[in-house]
């Protein structure tokens, strides 16, 4: 058995030696270079565009403008399509736009023979604008008289949803309740995948082929078809290896524009390779969400009534829209169950960069708000932070009425026990009491709530194909993509064990090609091992059954007394090896009377979902005069069920924790208030955290197997980001007595708050 072993990644050697091919490696030398011309206003209309100077630049092939594009509006979110119009994503994008909604919106496209000509020409395209005022803040955008960003949404509210349980107004009348109220604000941040978005397109036999750095090839095919107004079968998307996505590439980014571009130059190959600056401004960002929470609690901390309001900053276009706020809001009544709850969430258009999916999908924001608020309750009531959580978190056996998710394991208590022991939590709490002086230390923690995949909100489907080779090895294909997280290796381990063949005999076809890869929606929602695991198991079991039936012709043994073990057909009754799988494949394929090409394909509809919980502990040292936080220790504890590959699982957690550290302490997109221009659109001014800002990233797993899962697994890709920022915040609170209410907790914020508190 190879499940549970830390085998090397199937792509490790090629990646380490630079042999792996990414989109740019696959462009032919004659490929034209496309450069987007970006608007230099934050909001308004393009009145005219002068391309004459640009067209004079030697090497320029074509200049296209927002007045040339097809008339179709399309959605970009990487959600499965819904045949129910009420459940479809908002179609508000055009290939290029004359209505500029963010500073840098796409108004024209230059296609040239090389990069220098394209860049020179793009600088020479002149546009005249009618400028409108901009709005960057969600609550400002909802006010009467705010600039209207989309005509269909006069108050800029893309969506407002509510949930109600019990009777809040009545419940708060109970005598002796203590009111705890807080505001918690989170910034727009970017994924910063190392490979910027890139795609290339060309035409072949009347169809459009797009190679793209995407997480979701099958979804992108649909979106390209919608954007160009052509049948989806006319589009072929190929996904090579990609240099990270983190949700940014769970969106159709510029594949539709690039697909259209090739049609405008006779099907010649065209490359659209975004700069880092464009990746910041024109791809997707994490929703900045402001939370307002009121809790009425009894002196023992039990919650009587709670109210949540949240405003989610959508930026200029709908993309994933309200799904993010909805997920964040959905967790609120579950994490600390309470009988009387009122929740309202608003997703609001502004002139910021478009917010979409990003690792955690609303939960890093929500975890910050909910776990800071929990600590604020603890502080106000003078309770023990751990005991408060033991007493009031979601209990074992809890079932959510909507998703039917059930908490099967005592994950919260088990994970907190790990953290308490590893950090000597109570001793540190004593040690750090009543500190004075410039440099103080503190310890804090946070739990997190997460679920796996998107059932029942959206379709969950996964298809798997297996093909047996003459030597007994097997190709495996699924639509769930390798995006650096190690999915292919996990798939190979699952296939090897289920089918009964050696790990090295499994060849995962890594690159998806919508012409040949069975349908799957891609990599997102921390769903890979859960959903693809289901189709892999379904396919492998059916395949084994088929193989054993065919084997009867050669072994004369009934399938039910046979099995495949270590690549051999064996007789279970006495363990005898009857023949190798390779011999069977060869005999069956080349049989002149009854030839079998042994393959199997299965589609799994997934109608379950799984909670994936855990916690984070953090210890900090705060230099008060320098307004600086040094993270001394940080540990994440995850219960993601059974580990398929512990080393890869640990890598996922470390990456997520790193992202959480940046979210906590340094990352923030800064917009010019007057023009809506993004000021820090590069990796120098945008403060992604570096290895020098990290302590050792400590990772611990609990392995309570998930009963609904094909391999006992559940979400791990996204959850690691979620609890880091609130754990650090609660540690700073422990160190200084200052409760911070916004991210990032960088020197700017600390300077403001320490000054207000009289510490400096």
């Amino acid at each position, binding site marked *: 058995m190879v499940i549970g072993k830390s085998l090397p990644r199937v792509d490790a050697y090629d990646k380490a030696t630079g042999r792996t091919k990414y989109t740019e490696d696959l462009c032919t030398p004659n490929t034209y270079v496309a450069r987007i011309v970006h608007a230099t206003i934050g909001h308004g209309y393009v009145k005219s565009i002068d391309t004459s100077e640009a067209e004079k630049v030697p090497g320029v092939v074509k200049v296209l403008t927002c007045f040339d594009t097809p008339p179709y509006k399309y959605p970009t979110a990487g959600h499965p399509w819904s045949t129910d119009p009420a459940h479809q994503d908002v179609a508000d994008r055009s290939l290029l736009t004359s209505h500029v909604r963010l500073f840098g919106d796409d108004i024209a496209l230059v296609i040239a023979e*090389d*990069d*220098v000509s394209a*860049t*020179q020409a793009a*600088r020479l395209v002149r546009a005249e604008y009618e400028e409108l005022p901009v709005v960057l803040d969600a609550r400002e955008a909802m006010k009467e008289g705010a600039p209207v960003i989309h005509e269909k949404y006069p108050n800029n509210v893309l969506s407002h949803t509510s949930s109600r349980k019990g009777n809040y107004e009545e419940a708060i009348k109970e005598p002796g309740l203590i009111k705890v109220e807080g505001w918690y604000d989170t910034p727009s941040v970017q994924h910063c995948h190392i490979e910027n978005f890139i795609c290339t397109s060309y035409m072949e036999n009347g169809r459009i082929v797009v190679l793209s750095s995407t997480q979701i090839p099958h979804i992108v095919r649909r979106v390209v078809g919608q954007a160009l107004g052509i049948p989806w079968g006319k589009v072929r998307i190929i996904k090579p290896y990609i240099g990270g996505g983190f949700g940014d590439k769970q969106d159709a980014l510029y594949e539709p524009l690039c697909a259209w571009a090739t049609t405008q130059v006779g099907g010649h190959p065209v490359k659209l390779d975004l700069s880092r600056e464009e990746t910041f401004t024109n791809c997707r960002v994490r929703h900045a969400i402001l939370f307002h929470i009121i809790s009425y609690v009894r002196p023992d901390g039990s919650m009587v009534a709670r109210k949540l309001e949240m405003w989610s900053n959508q930026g200029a276009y709908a993309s994933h829209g309200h799904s993010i706020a909805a997920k964040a809001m959905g967790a609120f009544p579950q994490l600390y169950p309470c009988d009387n709850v009122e929740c309202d969430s608003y997703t609001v258009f502004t002139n910021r960069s478009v917010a979409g999916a990003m690792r955690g999908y609303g939960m890093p924001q929500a975890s910050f708000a909910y776990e800071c608020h929990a600590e604020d309750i603890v502080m106000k009531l003078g309770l023990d932070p751990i005991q408060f959580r033991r007493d009031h978190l979601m209990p074992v056996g809890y079932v959510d009425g909507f998703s039917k998710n059930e908490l099967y394991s005592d994950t919260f208590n088990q994970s907190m026990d790990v953290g308490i022991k590893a950090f000597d939590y109570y001793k540190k709490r004593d040690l750090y009491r009543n500190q004075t002086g410039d440099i103080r230390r503190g310890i804090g923690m946070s739990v997190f709530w997460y679920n796996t995949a998107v059932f029942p909100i959206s379709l969950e489907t996964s298809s798997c194909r297996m093909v047996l080779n003459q030597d007994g090895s097997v190709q495996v294909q699924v639509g769930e993509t390798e995006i650096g997280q190690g999915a292919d290796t996990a798939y190979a381990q699952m296939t090897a064990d289920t089918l009964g063949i050696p790990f090295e005999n499994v060849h995962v076809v890594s690159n998806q090609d919508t012409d040949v890869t069975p349908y799957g929606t891609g990599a997102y929602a921390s769903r890979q091992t859960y959903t693809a695991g289901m189709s892999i198991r379904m396919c492998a079991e059916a395949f084994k059954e088929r193989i054993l039936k065919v084997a009867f012709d050669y072994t004369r043994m009934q399938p039910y007394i046979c099995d495949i073990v270590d690549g051999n057909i064996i007789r279970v009754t006495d363990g005898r090896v009857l023949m190798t799988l390779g011999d069977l494949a060869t005999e069956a394929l080349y049989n002149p009377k009854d030839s079998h090409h042994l393959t199997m394909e299965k589609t799994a509809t997934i109608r379950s979902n799984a909670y994936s919980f855990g916690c984070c502990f953090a210890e900090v040292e705060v230099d008060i*005069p*320098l*307004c600086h936080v040094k993270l001394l220790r940080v540990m994440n504890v995850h219960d993601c069920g059974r580990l398929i590959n512990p080393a890869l699982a640990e890598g996922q957690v470390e990456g997520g924790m790193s992202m959480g550290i940046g979210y906590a302490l*340094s990352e923030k997109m*800064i917009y*010019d208030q007057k023009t809506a221009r993004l*000021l*820090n659109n590069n*990796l*120098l*001014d945008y*403060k*992604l*955290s*570096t*290895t*020098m*800002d990290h302590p050792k990233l400590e990772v611990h797993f609990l392995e309570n197997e998930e009963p609904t899962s094909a391999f006992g697994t559940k979400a791990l890709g996204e959850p690691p980001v979620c609890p880091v920022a609130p754990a650090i915040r609660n540690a700073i609170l422990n160190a200084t007595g200052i409760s911070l209410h916004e991210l990032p907790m*960088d*020197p*700017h914020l600390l*300077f403001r708050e320490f000054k207000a508190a009289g510490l*400096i």
Partner: protein
Amino acid sequence: MYDIKALYEAYSVEEAVRLLAAHPEAQIIAGGSDVLVQVREGRRAGKELVSIFMIDELRGVTMEEDGTIRIGSLSSFHTITYSPIIQEHLSVLGEAVDMVGGPQIRAIGTIGGNTCNGVTSADSASTLMALDAVMEVIGPEGKRLVPIADWYKGPKKVNLGPAELQTAILIRKESYEGYKGHYIKYGMRNAMEIATTGCSVNVKLSADKKTVEDVRIGYGVAAPVPIRARTAEANAKGKPADAETAAAIGRDVLLDVTPRNSWRASKDMRLHLCSTMAQRAFTEAVRKSGGEI
């Protein structure tokens, strides 16, 4: 692909001067860690470049007969940090340039470029200010020496005439002998950073380590160009090397610095940091000098 009109490579200082004279619009390029970024941004796109990168005589750190430390302008930050001469006599400079960017930038970026780009945030600049460095410049008229106090003419403007290039940075013996220094770079993260503010303090203590004989305080990003905190320096001379003097320095530097408000940091915060950093850098420099503080 970079938008460069022409690239002329010089293999000697005379050749560089000749090329610069022949191409008056050309920009000098050394390691390229600033110039290529600007070409890419469009600020210097389509321009001629004169590369001095192949002039090996401009590399390395040496000590002249009179004890002057000579740092060739093409010396990389890495070279300076790991130079035995720097480590023995000018450790503060080696430490300061070891905070530039990341390892790759420190291997390609040069101290000449760091001081010729004229930016106030250069990690070497505040320490060179505090060391009273002297710039050696060669041009069509020959060689001249420019004290660093006369080097910075304004943001991104330095004292270089037509067809001139900086060939070395000199630190006189009297500037470093008996001094110990400490540099604090304040950034929003611990690497890959440009200073929000940088403060470099050099201290010379009395023989009994109790009195401040001399103190020089250099700043980056506390004014449009790198500066010295002359008022604070003057007030601290002759004072006891103690916490009280450190606190006084922290207060007095506010008379010298003039940071501005920008989206990268507020003026209030920079003023607060200038004060705290001077106090801390002074304290650390006194400790390194053997004082008890």
